[in-house]
């Protein structure tokens, strides 16, 4: 029997994987071949999707960018025996894009059926939780701190400190909340985890529960990710049946149960306090901090709220020990980050590497340059609230502190590449427009500043490049940065000001001597 793998994650589905899987099964049946079609997760090599893999003695041979219409020809060429075809990319694990990566969190991604518990445990799953169940909660929090893991949602706060705070808090109920409201354009690593290795996230959340004494967990998933929601719900059901969840986690005295909550299309709900409001069923309005959610969180109870990647990285830290994870990375940015190559890039996908890699390496060695074939001009790192980096900044190591030195953010690790046809003034205006659409409205700098900001940039783009307008825009940005309650209003000026500083010609402004030198 031959196993043929056709991914079932939403990226592959969006390119017709469902039809491909059916066509392979039909064609094999007509030809009297013994073929089993396995629906695996995505490898994260999205530029190759739909990537069909055939199991052979040499390893799994990949066939990239397969179309339903190719199936008959693929069988004619003997692809079910791994034979040559134009679409063959050879043994998938030998593709340099994948082979050169340092996949720790994403070690298992795309190899197997995301919902198979046996596959999960045979590839190292549950080892972390089993170690944790033999440890004291204080030691677990200390080990997490020791691993150097910082919040991967963007804020980069040490996860161990958050967990310690929740553990130390006295309350009749504590919660673990997973922030899966991945709204940043250019990011999809959370989605890949949920659709391609959901048990890893579940295991991470159980560990968080055991460590802090929380007995209930919620995964808040954005409504734009319906496939993730379906996969998570099925995985949770199976985990419950397998005894991982419920009154007794793997037969121990720890109780932990897990639920999925669905967002409703609000970007600001990715901000942790707005997310908690939404999870309670209300409008996603940002809360003032302090108190921090670790002390007064969901329904006023102590709550660990971490991003998907943070929680999904926890299992490997406890499977291999904090030192193993800490040994990757640079400075205070320990471990790896799953970078997401997006936008105008030839080879978009997920690239997990230790901190310290540069944008230039990511864009050219992995991304292969732009898909348009034109020169890359600006890269926005860290989502819609991240800065636009010009080529002069592409050699800065990707590290939280190194990026902060130039006013940039690593954020959730998404990179969006723009070529030389881009207009950064238009993108700056869009940044303000997006803030105006998505502002929760609680604080004035964000609510009103975004609309005024959009108007000012429009005037500049229409030709009013007077000092007065530029000063007005800078002062407005200053007010938003200093006066907003959360990152929505507080960071929207980042893309705006970086566009203005590095690409003034797009605003109809001359380059200053310093800019010319750069």
């Amino acid at each position, binding site marked *: 029997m031959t196993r043929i793998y056709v991914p079932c994650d*939403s*990226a592959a*589905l*969006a*390119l017709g994987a469902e039809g491909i899987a059916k066509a392979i099964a039909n064609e094999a049946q007509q030809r009297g071949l013994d073929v089993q079609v396995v629906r695996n997760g995505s490898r994260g090599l*999205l*530029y190759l*999707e739909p990537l069909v893999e055939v199991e052979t003695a040499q390893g799994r041979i990949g066939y990239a960018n397969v179309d339903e219409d190719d199936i008959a020809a693929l069988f004619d060429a003997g692809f079910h025996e791994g034979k040559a075809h134009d679409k063959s990319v050879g043994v998938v694990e030998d593709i340099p894009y994948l082979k050169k990566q340092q996949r720790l969190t994403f070690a298992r991604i795309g190899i197997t059926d995301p919902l198979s518990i046996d596959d999960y445990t045979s590839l190292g799953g549950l080892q972390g939780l089993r170690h944790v169940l033999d440890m004291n909660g204080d030691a677990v929090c200390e080990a997490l701190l020791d691993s150097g893991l910082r919040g991967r949602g963007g804020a980069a706060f040490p996860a161990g400190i958050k967990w310690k705070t929740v553990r130390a808090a006295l309350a009749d109920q504590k919660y673990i909340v997973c922030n899966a409201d*991945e*709204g*940043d*354009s*250019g*990011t*999809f690593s959370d*989605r890949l985890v949920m659709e391609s290795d959901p048990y890893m996230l579940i295991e991470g959340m159980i560990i968080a529960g055991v460590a802090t004494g929380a007995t209930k967990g919620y995964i808040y998933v954005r*409504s*734009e*990710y*319906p*496939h993730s929601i379906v996969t998570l719900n099925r995985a949770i059901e199976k985990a419950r049946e397998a005894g991982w969840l419920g009154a007794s986690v793997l037969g121990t005295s720890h109780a932990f149960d897990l639920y999925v*909550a*669905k*967002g*409703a*299309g*609000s*970007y600001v709900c990715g901000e942790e306090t707005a997310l908690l409001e*939404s*999870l*309670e*069923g*209300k*409008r*996603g309005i940002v809360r003032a901090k302090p108190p921090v959610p670790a002390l007064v969180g969901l329904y006023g109870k102590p709550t660990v709220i971490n991003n998907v990647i943070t929680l999904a990285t926890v299992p490997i830290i406890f499977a291999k020990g904090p030192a193993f994870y800490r040994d990757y990375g640079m400075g205070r940015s320990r471990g790896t980050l799953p970078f*997401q*190559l*997006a*936008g*105008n*890039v030839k080879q*978009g*996908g*997920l690239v997990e590497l230790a901190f310290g890699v540069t944008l230039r390496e990511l864009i050219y060695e992995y991304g292969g340059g732009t*898909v*348009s074939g034109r020169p890359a001009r600006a890269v*926005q790192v860290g989502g*819609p609230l991240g800065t636009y980096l010009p080529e002069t900044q592409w050699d800065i190591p990707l590290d939280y502190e190194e990026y902060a030195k130039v006013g940039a953010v690593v954020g959730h690790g*998404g990179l*969006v*590449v*723009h*070529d030389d046809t*881009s207009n950064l003034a238009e*993108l700056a205006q*869009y940044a303000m427009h*997006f803030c105006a*659409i*998505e502002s929760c409205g609680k604080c004035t700098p964000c609510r009103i500043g975004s609309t005024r900001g959009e108007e000012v940039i429009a005037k500049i783009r229409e030709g009013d490049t007077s000092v007065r307008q530029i000063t007005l825009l800078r002062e407005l940005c200053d007010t938003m940065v200093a006066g907003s309650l959360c990152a929505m209003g507080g960071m929207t000026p980042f893309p705006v000001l970086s566009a203005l500083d590095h690409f003034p010609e797009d605003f109809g402004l001359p380059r200053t001597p310093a800019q010319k030198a750069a």
Partner: protein
Amino acid sequence: MTHPQLSDAAAEEVVRRHAVQGATLMTILHAIQDEAGFVPPEVVAPLARALSLSRAEVHGTITYYHHFRSAPPARVTVQLCRAESCRSLGSEALKDHIEGHTGCHFDSGHAEGTELESVYCLGQCALSPNMTINGELHAKVTPQKFARLYNAASAKVNADSEVTA
């Protein structure tokens, strides 16, 4: 588009069915919309009573979230991602093309049974531009691909409505 109003009794019944113990307002709104395709305005008052909230709180929640709609969806709903990644690969030119092809405008309600909505990120940023047509996700969309998908969706909706008629 007009739609028949729910009677008070029917609205009460919808709320009773979905406002189960422990369900939050958001969960209930999702359940109602998943079933009816939208959240009928008539359910606001009974929902407020059932959850001991003000009508303003319920109405405010429905209108706060882009996902909830207070009127039935169009026969064909196109959602085009207009965030940064899709912009870098021509989503704005695609938007103009779509408006020309359908004769409708983005974010301005129904026309000719089609509604065009701007959305901001569908999570397929390595395969931009992205869109959904009647909820089905499509990546690497070109004007030609859009025309094929849109025409197929329209034909399917028309065929389905003939069957029901």
